[in-house]
């Protein structure tokens, strides 16, 4: 969806520029335009949200299996395990919404699905911030998204 939306915006932008300069005119892409728009698109389309849950297992191999089972029916949403604390069984899930659905709605959908699984208790949305240091992995991830 993100790819399609970006493509539509870019195509539309190029069309408008072509129109503005005429079909045979020199088209100079505005670097500011290209710079700002992917950032705006990304902010709207790909903002992750987080949910804390407590897994009734401390076996890390079972965590993925339980989550996969609990979220088997959810469409257009991917859930990643950001951290799992073996001592407490707490898991922080990062939810990425690939649909046009709002993040609040998508998060509620995930929470409802998790609640139905007897191996999971929701802890809530205890907020965890992160240090704002870029890491190579994050940078690669962000760059690829912006370039999509």
């Amino acid at each position, binding site marked *: 969806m993100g790819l399609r939306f970006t493509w539509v915006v870019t195509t539309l932008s190029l069309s408008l520029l072509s129109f503005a300069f005429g079909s045979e005119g020199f088209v100079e892409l505005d670097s*500011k*335009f290209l710079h*700002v*728009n992917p*950032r*705006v698109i*990304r*902010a709207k389309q790909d*903002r*992750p*949200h987080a949910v804390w849950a407590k897994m009734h297992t401390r076996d890390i191999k079972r965590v993925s299996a339980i989550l996969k089972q609990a979220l088997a029916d959810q469409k257009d949403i991917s859930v990643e395990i950001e*951290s799992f604390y073996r001592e407490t069984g707490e898991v*922080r899930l990062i939810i990425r919404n690939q649909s046009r659905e709002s993040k609040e709605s998508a998060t509620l959908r995930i929470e409802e699905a998790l609640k139905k699984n007897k191996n999971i208790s929701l802890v809530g*949305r*205890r*907020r*965890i*911030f*992160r*240090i*704002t*240091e*870029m890491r190579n992995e*994050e*940078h690669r991830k*962000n*760059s690829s998204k*912006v370039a999509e």
Partner: protein
Amino acid sequence: MMGFPIKAKASLVICCTFAVLSAACSSQERVEKLSSGPSFRNKLPPAYYTQSTLDIPANLNDRYFADKGAWSQVYTDLWAHLEIGAAALYSGITLPSNEIVVAVLDTGVDTDHEDLVGRMWVNPREIPSDRYNNSVDDDQNGFVDDFVGWDWVNNTNNPSDDNGHGTHVAGTIAAIGGNGKGIVGVAPFVRIMPLKVCSYDGACESSDIRDAILYANRNGAKVINLSLGGPDDGPEGQAFNSVIEQVSKAGTLVVTSAGNDAMDVGEYSPANSTYAMPVAAHRSDGRICGFSNFGWKLDVSAGGCGEKNGQDVGAMISANSKKCGSLGDQYCAVRTAIGEKYSLKYGTSMSTPHISGLAALVWSLNPQATPLQIRQTVLKTAVKANADNKNVDFGFGKASAVDAARIALEAPGIKITSPFHGAISNQHLLKLRIEAQSPVAWELRAVSVQDGDANLQLTAGDLIATGTVSAATNVDLSELYLPAQAGSYLIVLKAQVSGESYFDTALVRR
């Protein structure tokens, strides 16, 4: 150190002989006793004290200062520091003893690092023993033996750094100048209050951060550095807004990173708090780092990444913790080219401490200033990204120390305290705060913001209200008369003093 009195009164010696003080001592006597005399100093590890004034040589001989190519890059090693120009202000002088304390809420700080040793804040109201604690909460603040800060993650009084991030931040702010080692901080004469709120993997609980913000303020920190954050999901952002407003009104400036998610900083907490000072990151070639959050809420920008083949790369050198990587190499990669005592990082985490250091520097020149005035001084003197007043990527521009120091004494403080961001109606109550030492003429405008606008002239748009004040004043306007057309508007508060203009802005929709 820290203004400890030379002499202890005789009565204090009589009534306060033991480490656990008798109830007969008054609280004032207890404080004086705890912070006085050689017996106290002898019980502190040497790392925590030094002389009360600091001589910084004119020719800074720190290894990476003014040198280049430490990691085969073409620009200066400490380029972001040199860009701000702080060293030009303080090298070759003896700095005053009214030391500003900067709290670093982070992964902890390596207090023994060769470039930070002796520069830590010490709680004068807490008695340590030879083993760094006496198991008594001497100052009754709820934290036992918090004589150099606190660790909320492990609930201990040892805020050491098991990641490396907090030490890097602290080094950018306060690394010792002229010691022939490593780097020099933007404000090498300040004290660092290390408050560990983030674990070894860089995760930081919001409730810990709020507690630590209040702790820093109650213990005398003038500046709080928050090189952390996350997307705002509502209630949490409001809670941060409340705490940051509280400490701001109590004399502490909160400097926050804008974030690395390439998203609108208005939706990123705690950078979007009304009283916080969000900092973007730009590259060594002057362009904005691609990851840096953007938007009209941005205040200012400082160096936060390098450039190589058009990509953002690690180019911010600072101190590294000796525990870096002890809990997993993935959290702290050591670059062999510059050894283990220093590291290269990048992010808005790295640009933020440059501004914290600059704020502390300005504050040392004008100790009577309020947080708002310090913030205004830094914004006013930033080097604009272009001819426009405000830019969606750089805020008011790239910070500059020399000009900030020049006007440190006369800057007014101006702030739109409500509305902040979001949808409003025409009947919205508008609140301003203006702190002036001489007559200040102010005006309020609404500037239409079109989608995709990158820069704005803040003196354009519809005039809403004007006025003049000559002292600290709260101005409440019962209605905000926005132009009739629906859309996004930047509310611009402009104040003029001695021919200089100062701005504050808030983005609203109707």
